[in-house]
């Protein structure tokens, strides 16, 4: 896999707009815990609740995530992790409370405002959600639709050359460049997961939500993907929120760990202050 190669970030356009302090080499130790309070807030949830009909999934969920943080969201099956991410993207409405993304009220946004907010955010969904009959490359090209809408981004065959190259570069970063022409429904589970990750990062998002990005990856590919995220956070200042059932990943790659349990955010602490046993408690 090419993921582990020491490459410079593919897109430097975003870097120029950001404070230099956010760009630190990957080798540098993690920022101290209190950077949370000084950096701008990228994601803020205030007393968010979600019900499906009568069934309450979670309530009174509040947290603030600083820009450039890597955050692990953990919790048992059915705890509501995926639901929380979908609420944050405005894909489903919240039942109460509000979510702010990049300083804007996401849960209240509509139409063009919501679209341009989403265009700055990447989402890797748990079920990959690739378009089955299209090529891997076309699927990645679709990741640009938010920033540059229109028919030229419907397929890799008609996409502008720069977009095709960016998409290929994104595939290369997840080690899938050799599969660019393969139809999405003919990829293995792990391959399609990596293509979904490429689709989410091709637009150089400022915030990346990754719902169990390593669930169908073999151990080595899983490490490679987490390394990739880690580099996005450290080199490009991306805020990465990932859910995981891998306690080791959560503690090693997360700066912060959020834990959903019994419909509440039971855990919100720095990874350094937690042990594997603390996390296991969430699953009881």
């Amino acid at each position, binding site marked *: 896999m090419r993921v582990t190669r020491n490459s410079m970030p593919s897109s430097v356009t975003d870097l120029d707009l950001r404070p230099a302090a956010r760009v630190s080499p990957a080798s540098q130790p993690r920022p101290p815990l209190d950077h949370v309070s000084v950096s701008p807030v990228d994601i803020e949830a205030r007393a968010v609740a979600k019900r499906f009909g009568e069934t309450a999934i979670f309530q009174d969920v509040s947290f603030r995530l600083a820009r450039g943080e890597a955050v692990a969201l953990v919790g048992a099956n059915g705890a509501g992790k995926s639901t929380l991410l979908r609420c944050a993207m405005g894909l489903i409405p919240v039942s109460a409370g509000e979510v702010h993304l990049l300083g804007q009220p996401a849960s209240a946004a509509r139409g063009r405002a919501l679209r341009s907010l989403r265009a700055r955010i990447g989402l890797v969904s748990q079920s990959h959600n690739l378009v089955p009959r299209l090529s891997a490359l076309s699927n990645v090209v679709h990741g640009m*639709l938010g*920033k540059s809408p229109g*028919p030229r981004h419907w397929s890799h065959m008609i996409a502008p050359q720069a977009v095709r190259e960016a998409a290929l570069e994104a595939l290369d970063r997840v080690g899938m460049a050799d599969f660019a022409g393969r139809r999405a429904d003919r990829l293995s589970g792990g391959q399609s997961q990596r293509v979904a990750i490429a689709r989410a990062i091709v637009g150089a998002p400022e915030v990346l939500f990754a719902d169990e990005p390593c669930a169908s990856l073999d151990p080595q590919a899983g490490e490679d993907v987490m390394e990739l995220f880690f580099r996005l956070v450290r080199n490009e200042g991306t805020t990465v929120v990932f859910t995981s059932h891998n306690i080791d990943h959560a503690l090693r790659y997360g700066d912060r760990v959020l834990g959903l349990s019994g419909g509440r955010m039971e855990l919100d602490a720095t990874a350094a202050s937690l042990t594997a046993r603390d996390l296991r408690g969430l699953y009881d």
Partner: protein
Amino acid sequence: MTDTSVRPDRPVLPRYDRPSAAAFLGYAFGVALLVWCLAGAGFSVDKVLSAPPRFADFAARAFPPNFDPAVLSRLGWKMVETMQIAIAGAVIGVILSLPVALLAARGLIAGNWVNQIVRVGLSFIRAVPDIAWALVFVVAVGLGPFAGMLAIVVDTIGFCGRFFADDMEGVDKGPAESLTATGARKLDVVACATIPAAMPAFVSTALYALEKAVRSSTILGLVGAGGIGIELKVGFDLFDYPTAMTVILMIAVVVIAIEQLSGWARVKIIGEQR
């Protein structure tokens, strides 16, 4: 040790029970309804019994079918015209159905009201039989195959508009949601996620529409809207049963061939998936 007996707190699904009084009344009502309908349809045992001899009489007069080369060539050309009507009408109808279906599909690009109005419109189109559309277009554009083609176009829109919409409503919502999450506009999401996913169903529906168009086009001639149907009518009107028989056989051969061809195309186009 494991207890294999059925746990009392988790009953298995109920078995067959004797119908309740209400259900029994329901069945009785159903039977009465059927009898009433048969009466309305003029069902008569006498006629059923007397039909076979009369049918045999017709068959005797129709056989052998008229295979005179001149007649075959005339009918052949009429059949070609029939196919032209069917194919032109079905293709144009399928193409026009796509935008209509986009408006009819719930939760896609148009709002609830538009969905409802378009769907009612499509229901109306389907409610009017193809032969009635042909009559309308004969009045509008005059006798001839063009009226027939327009009837097929409208009939195809009524059929494909509805089923394309259903096909699009039925696809997995996941890819569309993920593209929505990239900030894509609705139209882009539909073009990139919904339509590619619905494509196999579209192909299937469109091929079925073509089969249907071929079947319709063979009888449009009865009302002067072009195609081989006129030959059938003339054959019966002039008691030229052998020629009428030839027409019927030709229609059967062509319709069966089209069905085979479309089945083959369906497998070729969709079956290669996975």
